[in-house]
């Protein structure tokens, strides 16, 4: 998981070589219509009107992503703490969880369109739905694995149930919650992009599909590059924040492995 600080030269070389092959192949062959050379996609990115449009779509996608992801985090952590803490709460929801969890989340998009219509509310709702699962299940796990001694420590210091939840259970489960958040991050982006393709009027997903249908594959690839960079940047940001917030855990693990 740890980011390698040195450049992976061999890996970058292979990537560059593949790009070059693609460039040469599409320039030589007659497949230009659906496989424009990478340089064409790059050129599209630098065209002012495309870049401006892409910026607007990027903002739309990012806004929906943040709304869906952050709400999913808040709801799933809260629900996960309750379900992890209370055997009763878990047993009454267990069947629903086990049935819905393995279902591909995109299947909920038509339901969301029926209930919420077409628009941001629908797209954020499906993002919350899909992103919530890993966070929920990991939070339940984390609270379940809470050491009895930690709870008793809180109790002997006179803490009530709510304070133990906040000051003991939640920080102790933080590494589990972080795992859920890390898994959910790309899932949330997938759902935002997909729902934009299905029912969006803007956003990178909408842009990519719209350019494809408008027979502008270079612009389509430009959109794909932007959404890929967005995913990459969000993941790097997450890893950096996590390393800071869970610095205590990293040391603990390093010691355990030594």
């Amino acid at each position, binding site marked *: 998981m740890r980011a390698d600080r040195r450049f992976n030269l061999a890996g970058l070389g292979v990537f560059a070589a593949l790009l070059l092959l693609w460039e040469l192949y599409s320039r030589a062959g007659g497949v230009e219509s659906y496989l424009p050379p990478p340089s064409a996609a790059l050129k599209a990115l630098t065209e002012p009107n495309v870049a401006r449009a892409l910026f607007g779509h990027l903002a739309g996608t990012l806004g929906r992503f943040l709304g869906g992801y952050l709400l999913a985090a808040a709801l799933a952590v809260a629900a996960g703490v309750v379900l992890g803490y209370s055997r009763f709460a878990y047993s009454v929801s267990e069947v629903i969880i086990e049935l819905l969890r393995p279902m591909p989340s995109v299947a909920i998009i038509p339901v969301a369109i029926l209930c919420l219509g077409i628009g941001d509310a629908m797209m954020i709702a499906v993002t919350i739905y899909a992103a919530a699962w890993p966070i929920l299940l990991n939070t339940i796990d984390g609270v379940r694995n809470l050491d009895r001694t930690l709870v008793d*420590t809180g109790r002997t210091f006179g803490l009530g149930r709510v304070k133990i939840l906040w000051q003991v259970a939640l920080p102790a489960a933080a590494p589990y919650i972080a795992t859920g958040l890390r898994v959910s991050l790309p899932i949330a982006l997938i759902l935002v992009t997909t729902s934009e393709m299905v029912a969006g009027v803007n956003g990178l997903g909408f842009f990519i599909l719209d350019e494809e249908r408008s027979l502008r594959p270079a612009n389509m690839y430009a959109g794909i590059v932007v959404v890929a960079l967005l995913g990459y940047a969000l993941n790097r940001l997450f890893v950096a924040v996590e390393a800071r917030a869970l610095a*205590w855990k990293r040391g*603990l693990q390093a010691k355990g492995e030594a």
Partner: protein
Amino acid sequence: MPLLEVDALCKSYDGSAGAATLAIENISFNVERGEFVALVGPSGCGKTTLLMCIAGLAAPSGGRVAVKSQLVDRPPPDLVLVFQEYNRSLFAWRSVLGNVLFGLEAKGRGGKAADERARRLIGLVGLEGFERHYPWQLSGGMQQRVAIARALAYEPEVLLMDEPFGSVDAMTRLELEDALLAIWKELGTTILLVTHDIEEAIYLSDRVHVLARRPSRVVETVAIPLPRPRHQVTTRAEPSFMELRNRIYRRIADAG
């Protein structure tokens, strides 16, 4: 009026076949304010169960526990338990200072005064300079010092200790015993300590309750008239120390 009263305490567990297993049978003793009392007994004699009942973390099956004449039916506000497993009891996400501050926060103390008091306690347990360290960066003995400082920060009138030095090496154990005695002298906190180490019980305490195994009961109470301050070499070399040790050892062996 004793600070802590344990009166006819019983604790049984439901066995797998529906038969109840008696872990503790009819234990009674008192602890006076400012006293240092040790409970000594063989492993598996229900010492931890007994402390959990006294700390209000487990409900007794019979009898009663009272702190300052108040019946214990939940963790009492004037009492803190220090667990044997310091590595499971410390908050891994809090620094040394953060862990000790927890004891003060639990009492509703905050701000600069709390910070100063926490630092003073960290110094008292000999961890000055380690305020910013996390528990995993410390040795076992140092971690238990943090746990003790955190407990003292809560300003309990009674400090319960469950084999606090059971998981550290022999040299560290002697150091921690002396550190504990120094703290006890300085703060005057009443201490009830459980151990399976007979010499440790004698060395530290004013009185030793000898427990027998299965079901656990007090078979004898031994007053320890050894003068204070005590010293790891000279105190342990005194003939009366040896006599006490042999007497308690025989008592435990006889009770089997």
